[in-house]
């Protein structure tokens, strides 16, 4: 439903989005992952025709967003939570949007109920918490009951209960056959919510695959082995049909539990200095994938 082709955005000499191509299928949740500043929001704004690409195209259902006949009935979007005039009430904010696309006012109350904001609908949004702003943004996205939904960091500022709600909500939207494209910088959250992943770093595509695929490639059971007799151990393990790799610390054996490696060493009389199981978390795998692309490294990383 969403097709991004060779999309590039330059600000002066800085390249925010670099020759990015991917497509988002309907009936599933597609996660859009990348560190802060990797170009996720810029890409989403370009899909919605808010920012103009330097080159390349972005279409929804085969046409650019600006050609939509009733944009809010075709595509719903949650951009930054603070895309709201603080002096207007939540109810009036939604009404101005509804009127623009001839959506009945009754629908405003429906979406307010949907996100649990009925109580505060008549309050001005300037006093809203970040979480309430997010809920209002989700309500605005759902206003036209659209087929295609884009959410930029929807769980930002939500409490745990809100996060679970958004997760369930996104899954149910996809189950209804809608196209759901959701950005996040949290891998763990996407592993629970998304079916497909598009990973970017510094505006470039790093990976596009299903979540299951990502998990199975990145969370393999591994065992680290240190031994003075690395060559013999390597041969022994390979002989058993195991995959072995060497790094500066020793050997890494894939898809095996440490017990079995220990037994094999014992049987072959190989001295062990270390035998430790390793399980990389998805977050680590994601960080590994985008390591060179993180825009802002934290102090801890620098101190290492």
């Amino acid at each position: 439903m969403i097709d991004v082709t060779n999309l590039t955005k330059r600000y002066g000499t800085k390249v925010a989005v670099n020759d990015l191509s991917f497509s988002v299928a309907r009936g599933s949740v597609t996660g859009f992952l990348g560190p802060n500043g990797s170009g996720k929001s810029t890409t989403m704004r370009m899909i919605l025709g808010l920012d103009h690409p330097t080159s390349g195209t972005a279409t929804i259902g085969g046409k650019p967003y600006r050609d939509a006949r009733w944009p809010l009935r075709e595509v719903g979007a949650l951009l930054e939570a603070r895309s709201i005039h603080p002096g207007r009430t939540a109810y009036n904010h939604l009404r101005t949007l509804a009127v623009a696309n001839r959506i009945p006012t009754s629908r405003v109350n429906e979406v307010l109920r949907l996100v649990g904001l009925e109580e505060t609908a008549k309050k001005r949004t300037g006093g809203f918490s970040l979480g309430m702003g997010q809920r209002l943004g989700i309500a605005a996205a759902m206003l036209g009951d659209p087929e295609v939904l884009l959410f930029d960091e929807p769980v930002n500022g939500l409490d745990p209960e809100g996060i679970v709600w958004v997760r369930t909500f996104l899954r149910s939207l996809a189950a209804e056959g809608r196209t759901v494209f959701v950005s996040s910088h949290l891998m763990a959250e996407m592993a629970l919510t998304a079916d497909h992943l598009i990973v970017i770093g510094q505006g470039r595509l790093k990976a596009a695959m299903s979540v299951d695929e990502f998990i199975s490639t990145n969370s393999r059971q591994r065992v680290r082995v240190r031994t003075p007799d690395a060559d013999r151990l390597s041969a022994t393990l390979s002989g058993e049909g195991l995959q072995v790799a060497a790094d500066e610390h020793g050997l890494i054996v894939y898809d095996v539990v440490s017990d079995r490696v220990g037994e094999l060493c014992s049987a072959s009389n190989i001295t062990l200095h270390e035998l430790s199981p390793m399980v990389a978390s998805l977050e680590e795998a994601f960080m590994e994938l985008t390591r060179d692309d993180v825009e802002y490294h934290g102090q801890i990383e620098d101190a290492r």
Partner: protein
Amino acid sequence: MTTNLLPPPPAPSARTIPAGSYSLLDAIKAEWMKFRTVRSSLWCLGIFTIIMVGFSALFCAVTVNQWGKHPEDVFGFDPLTASLAGVTMGSLAIGVLGVMVVSAEYSTGSIRATFAAIPHRSTVMLAKVLVLATVLFITAAVAELIAFFLGQAILSTGHAATLIGQFPATHIGKPPTVSLGSHGVLAGLLATDCYLTTLAIVTLGLGILIRHTAGAISAFVGVLFPLFLIVALLPTTFKDHLQKFLPLEIQQTVVVSKPVVSATSMSMWHGVIAMALYAVVLVGAGIFFAVRRDA
């Protein structure tokens, strides 16, 4: 906020997307709703009306009180101009309103929600122009009429006077007043209404171009006042050619019931047309850039 567990979202209703597409009319309805659902617009209109009425009362009362004491205030006295003494200060409130209609959306980011609903930015901006022009034309008409009737009522309380210090002593009678039917009054009121309305559109154009509230207001106040002072300092040959194009100078020829006869100023309706041209140029330039810039 209460954290009651939220119900699962209902299945989507049978979606029926109506035929056709959004139109300028939909954009106008949305802009009108936006206009009347924030307090700042109502504040600006209220302050504008209070200035118009208050200055009229003040100026006319002072006129009545001082009548005959200063000959220069008597000759060329225009009762309509006196009762519309609030136009200059009222212009400030209108300018702020015109700027805010668009800059508030850019500064809060809500312009993205607007463009998401109506991606054709020229349609959005045109709707803003039409809504603001209509609101301003009606509000200014009401404010002018209140100011006019109040001002004339105050002027009519004046007493006949004799010009002091003149020889022979000149009887100048009571301060003159005009009624709606007097020659040039309706024309002057209408031209003033048009002047204020086009001024609002000029500032809206500034808002679209500059996008920041403070910057656009500074530009507006900078054009309206300091430019006037700078031109006034120029040598006469330049000044006579340039001065008549300044909004404040146009105002002098518009807010009158007796035409200003001067070789260096425009006529009343030429002044209004000049203001309309400024509005068209600024809004046109604003739309040109708004369509091309990132929101």
